[in-house]
């Protein structure tokens, strides 16, 4: 056997296990999910319906109610990016002790959403920390459980989500700031710009790529990583107040045992995520050709 064909053989043999694992457990199920989504299936009997399952979903008001929650959660994204951006700028001033603070801010990244949800549940409850704080500043009379109202529960979920994203996004921006050419900042200082002007006019425009990356990570998390948080904090309620599409898949598939409809919601989620990914790719391409 020639060296060339031995090389080829080794390449194929070494890549097979990874490919097999990914295809069997991630690739094939996507195809199955598309098929399931066009059936009516309660776990025992499966009936083929066809693509009309999608039209009946799109006329279901509950589906739109759930999708609305996803849309509302997107309103948290600017905060989940803006706040970490400011924190990163703060750390990037390299005031004494900044490394220690960096470790502290990043710590929640290691913590399960389950544990975070466990705390948030107490934090937002009627006798919880938030209401105590509000009581101290004179709003004690309005003590309510934020998780008891549909709108307020979603707000509580969004706040918890923003807090949880601080570590990851701060780290992304801090990494970005470290790549900047320090002479640019120096030049701006010489030109008489103050810290805020430097941040707005010099640092931020140079961080575009990192902001985009953080944006995609944040949107993906908002749509597909909040299951544990919702499970622990609200169970999707009250009503459908905090049911997002990803949680709806779980409820429909595993609590109501409607595998067909559940799979359909999963496919819609997949399409939304794919669109987000493609937009990101487009942005990067456009930027590359722009140089």
């Amino acid at each position, binding site marked *: 056997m020639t060296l060339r064909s031995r090389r080829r053989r080794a390449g194929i043999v070494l890549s097979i296990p990874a490919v097999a694992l990914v295809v069997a457990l991630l690739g*094939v199920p996507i195809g199955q999910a598309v098929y399931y989504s066009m059936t009516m299936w309660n776990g025992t009997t499966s009936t083929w319906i066809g693509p009309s399952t999608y039209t009946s979903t799109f006329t279901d008001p509950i589906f739109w109610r759930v999708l609305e929650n996803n849309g509302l959660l997107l309103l948290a994204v600017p905060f989940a990016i803006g706040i970490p951006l400011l924190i990163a700028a703060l750390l990037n001033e390299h005031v*004494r002790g900044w490394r220690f603070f960096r470790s502290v801010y990043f710590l929640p990244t290691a913590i*399960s959403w389950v544990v975070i949800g466990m705390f948030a549940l107490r934090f937002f409850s009627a006798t919880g920390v938030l209401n105590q704080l509000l009581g101290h500043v004179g709003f004690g009379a309005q003590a309510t459980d934020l998780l008891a109202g549909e709108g307020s529960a979603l707000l509580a979920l969004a706040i918890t989500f923003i807090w949880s994203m601080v570590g990851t996004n701060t780290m992304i921006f801090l990494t970005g700031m470290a790549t900047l050419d320090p002479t640019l900042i120096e030049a701006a200082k010489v030109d008489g710009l103050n810290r805020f002007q430097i941040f707005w006019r010099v640092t931020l425009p140079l961080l575009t790529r990192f902001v985009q990356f953080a944006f995609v990570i944040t949107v993906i998390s908002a749509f597909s990583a909040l299951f544990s948080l919702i499970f622990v904090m609200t169970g999707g309620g009250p009503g459908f107040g905090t049911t997002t599409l990803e949680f709806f898949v779980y409820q429909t598939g595993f609590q109501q045992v409607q595998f067909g409809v559940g799979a359909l919601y999963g496919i819609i989620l997949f399409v939304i995520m794919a669109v987000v990914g493609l937009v990101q790719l487009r942005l990067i391409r456009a930027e590359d050709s722009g140089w």
Partner: protein
Amino acid sequence: MVIPRKLSTWALFALMVVVAVIMLYPFWYMIDNAFRSGNQFDRQNGHSFAGWHQLFANLPVVGQLLNSTLVCAAAIVIILAVSTTAGFAFAKLQYRGSGTVFLLVVSALMVPLQSIIIPEYVNLAKFNLTNSYTGAVLVYAALGTPFATFLMATYYRGISDELIEAAVMDGLGYERTFLNIALPLSLPAIATVTVLQFIQIWDDLLVGLLFLPANQRTITVGLATLSAGRTTSIPALMAGSIVSAIPAIIVYLIFQRHLIKGLTLGMGR
């Protein structure tokens, strides 16, 4: 307005402290309230070990910590085995179409778990894999493989082709070259993958909840289902939160550098 240099530095420091308090407060709250009885919690006064007693009475803590460890270890071993070999193949042993295959593997990153969870469940149940660790371990391994493969391939691309070719010329063969030369060189990347995956799997709820039998639940799943019962006392839940978070925190504190590197490497497109 000209702020004196020193004063502004103090203002920045004070701001950093405020942010630190916001980020650390939940941890303090958990520790403070884990050491209370239900009564002491209601009054927010006094401390005891009652919460811990209740936790251990309601949750097989030690067994579940062991389950978490086993599931993490097994899944990580599989991820490392397939991602190092495939990463090496995609970076150094390219064959016709290997670029496309690489893209195929990495693009699986885009698949949200919820989109495939129902067929996954049906398939695993069909092969009787949901009444032991096996099903969950396989799913964790598959979910971790795309990013790990991407990371390993990126790392192996940094190793010079000459080094690999020289080893092959010396008669090592490609498989031995991988094992004896490339693999030891990639220890930093292996550490990054291990830490990232450990935290991800340790902290996961959905896969464990659906694919692990009740008596083999991980600590994170155990804690979540305990809370869903709503009957358990809050101090016990806080104690459980601490127990489940500590291993991940320890790993984070020791391997912080690797975790950050893994996160930022994701930005390498």
